[in-house]
């Protein structure tokens, strides 16, 4: 176990180093820089050059890279180029919002999709496929709805027509109810695709388990179908499902970028889009590296948890 973890951890470090390097140099190839993005229409050539110099954009690339690496190792995320705010501070402020959205999404997804998928599998196993087929069809359609589209439709329905949830507004941690209302729509938009996917995966895993020999063994010992479902099928299907939940985090991170933009949620995705728009390398590279780190770490932890939970997997 420890061996495996250490080995995986080294791989993770190598991957992150690769990510950092790739991101750093790629960003430098983006035409236009923070200075010209900041100035917009207002500045002419000479004034712009001054600004660029002042922002430190004229340093040699390699020395920028090395100092970036050094500061990263020291956990110093630096300041944004345009607004001179500490990137770490911004990230710390945005992160809880994105994370609570992601976690709420996962909770909502799990509570809906697992019973649904299980039911579909259970019925399909007994030859009644309508729920299964319906679920598959729904999942396909929902999978294909771009989130910006779903977001707008939800806004029109739930916010404008029904008036249940606000479309904008501050996120305050002091008023949990307001927070819940504020995050409800984005979480719903994020969940809807996750639910479809997760229900399908649950359905597949449970169905697979239901046709396993040990399920038949349990039946031969006199357990009823429902007892078998809960004693054996869910327990066995839980592992692959848990893994998928971990992995779906990556998709969630994709989704939060767009949802945060539309619902003006001041989360990490929003920071990223701003960073890209203002060519704020410092911000963008830190955020992308952070995303990658988060993603890789979650995969790593999921993998370890999986291996710890599953008695079959040996190290």
């Amino acid at each position: 176990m420890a061996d495996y973890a250490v080995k995986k951890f080294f791989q993770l470090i190598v991957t992150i180093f690769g990510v950092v390097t790739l991101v750093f140099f790629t960003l430098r190839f983006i035409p236009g820089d923070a200075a010209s993005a900041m100035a917009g229409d207002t500045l002419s050539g000479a004034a712009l050059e001054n600004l660029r110099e002042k922002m430190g954009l004229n340093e040699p690339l390699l020395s920028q890279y090395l100092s970036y690496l050094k500061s990263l190792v020291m956990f110093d995320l630096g300041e944004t180029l345009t607004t001179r705010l500490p990137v770490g501070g911004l990230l710390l402020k945005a992160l809880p919002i994105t994370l609570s959205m992601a976690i709420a999404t996962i909770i909502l997804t799990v509570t809906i999709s697992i019973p649904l998928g299980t039911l579909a599998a259970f019925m399909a196993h007994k030859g009644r496929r309508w729920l299964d087929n319906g679920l598959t069809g729904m999942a396909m359609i929902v999978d294909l709805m771009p989130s910006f589209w779903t977001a707008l439709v939800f806004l029109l329905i739930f916010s404008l027509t029904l008036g249940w949830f606000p479309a904008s507004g501050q996120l305050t941690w002091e008023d949990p109810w307001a927070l819940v209302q504020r995050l409800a729509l984005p979480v719903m938009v994020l969940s809807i695709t996750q639910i479809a996917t997760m229900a399908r995966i649950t359905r597949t895993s449970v169905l697979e388990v239901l046709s396993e020999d040990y399920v038949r063994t349990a039946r031969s010992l006199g357990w009823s179908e429902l007892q078998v479902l809960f004693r054996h099928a869910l327990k066995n299907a839980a592992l692959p499902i848990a893994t998928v939940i971990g992995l779906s985090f990556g998709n969630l991170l994709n989704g939060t970028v767009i949802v945060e933009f539309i619902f003006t949620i001041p989360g990490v995705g929003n920071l990223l889009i701003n960073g890209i728009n203002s060519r704020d390398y410092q911000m963008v590279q830190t955020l992308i590296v952070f995303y990658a780190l988060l993603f890789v770490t979650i995969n790593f932890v999921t993998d370890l948890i999986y291996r710890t939970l599953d008695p079959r997997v040996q190290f």
Partner: protein
Amino acid sequence: MNYQAPLQTALLEVQDLKTEFHTDGGTVTAVDGVSFAIERGERVAVVGESGSGKSAMAMSILRLLAYPGIVAGGKVILEGTDITTLSERKLNSIRGRIVGTVFQDPMSSLDPVMTVAKQMIAPIMRNLGLSKDDARAEAIKWLDKVGIPEPERRIEAYPYEMSGGMRQRVMIAMALSCNPQLVIADEPTTALDVTIQAQIVELMKTLTAEAGAAMMFITHDMGLVARFAHKVAVMYAGRIVEFGPVDEIFANPCHPYTQSLLGTIPSADMVKEDRLPQIEGTPPDMKFPIKGCAYKDRCAGAHDRCAVEAPVLDSRGPHHTAACWLPKGLENTKSLKTEKTQRKLRNDNTEPHVVVELNELRKHFVSNQVFSPSKSMTVRAVNGVNLRVWNGQTLGVVGESGCGKSTVARLMLGLEKPTSGDIFIAGLPQMVFQDPASSFNPKMKIGAILEEPLVVKNVGDKHSRTEKIQTLIRQVGLDPSYLSRYPHQLSGGQKQRVAVARALALNPAVVVADEPTSALDVSVRAQIINLLADLKDELGVSFVFISHDLLTVRYISDQIAVMYLGEVVEYGPADEVFAHPAHPYTRALIDAVPVPNPAIEKTRTNAPLSGELPSPLNLPTGCPFASRCPMVTDRCRAEKPILPPHKTSRQVACHYAQ
């Protein structure tokens, strides 16, 4: 073996049972009107090929069929009650309590994420109404009974921590723990090694006898039937074609199918000149209604009536029934559909010379642990093997799974690089693989598959190659029209024929056949064995025949090498080794093989080899067999016997070889 006529109502009576599978491709009638009865305490064997409906029939009794299978008709009367009409809930109180079940594959039949305790205790509590502690004690008692060492500790183990044999013992303990009246065992030993198989069979026999439980035992192994059963039901194409007491069935089979099945098994007294009787063709597709007798296409005795009218079970003696229009079936089993029954042994005038020689061959697999080298593990799969194969002869290699016999084959073919030692081969080695399904590139037609070795080796031009593959396909008894088919369009037996043809394409010096028949059905097995034996005689090719099936190996081989834990423990002429095994392991192996003759089986001692194959990770310092040897001494544990010449032609690695 004291079969007695029933005095009261039968424990289980099955009447006209019908089971269907409604698939997208049509309705498959897997069980087509089966009727029989099992008395209390009676052991009934159900034999038949795969697809004969024997498992579906067994699962239908307790309605354990998975979707899309349904019981379409008939009655199952258990202790006087028809359970086909019972609700699921009532049936659940019968499952486990009155009827226990043991399944085929011990690897997949236990829940991998639950400990044995969790899987065993709850049913005991429920079915016997015991408290948790009592149930646990009961479970431990049963684990002890089935021969699981340290049951108090092992009950907390997960299935993956146990070997296949151990798991099957747990399955048996689970099935018996609620004191059922009837145990249904669906091929419980098929997935196990021959020595373990003997142990399990013996165990089931004793325990059911002790508890007075009846047993329905499903198998395709006639030897096991002879060893085990009171009565035998032979199934073919969803129906019972013959039913009767075991002695009757073996001594006086009346259905051509039973007769042929018994004939296909190489018996100990068979001479090599005798061809194995074989059953041609394949069983019918159960998707389509069968007109007349289902066996007519493969039956030597088929006549006009068979094509229009299906025979029903008809009395052939006391308690003996058979479904055939011919009262005695085939008069002469030698007149099975084979062109010739004897082959001429090749009289080769050339000097016998060694074609294959292995010297001190070793293959170690090392798994590296980067961060803690101390944990690096070495598996000594082949640990110093010396073997020779002479021209035109067959060397049989036998041993349990994990003994290294397949690795030896791969080393000979150059598919693995030896860790040390030499391999000398006078010419080209070729191979016939175990699994016909994966032996061929599914994207290539048979013609291309046979041509491939010639193309790779640049033999001849297009025209001569085409001629060559035509010859090859005929040599293995297939029509050249098969050349334009894809592998998946061929049956398992046909695929193995093609595999043999491919192995012969380059005129090899030796063909290594690694368990070539183990994936095949009984009736087809004989076809392949005959083919190999014929080719050896016709072409003078040497064979290395690797198998765990001792009877077959004895029949086909000139020399036998018995392997144990990567080493050859006994080597010598096949008949001699068989008749007078010198190594205790060889003896145990031979003892473990059930003989398809109830009379002989009754006389055998049946003291199966105890224990299991030790892990090749930590080999004992002394004799590798010391941990299981009945005659082990301290010397064996300390000192490793080498393979010395024993008598003139044999070698035995044992300090006490007789």
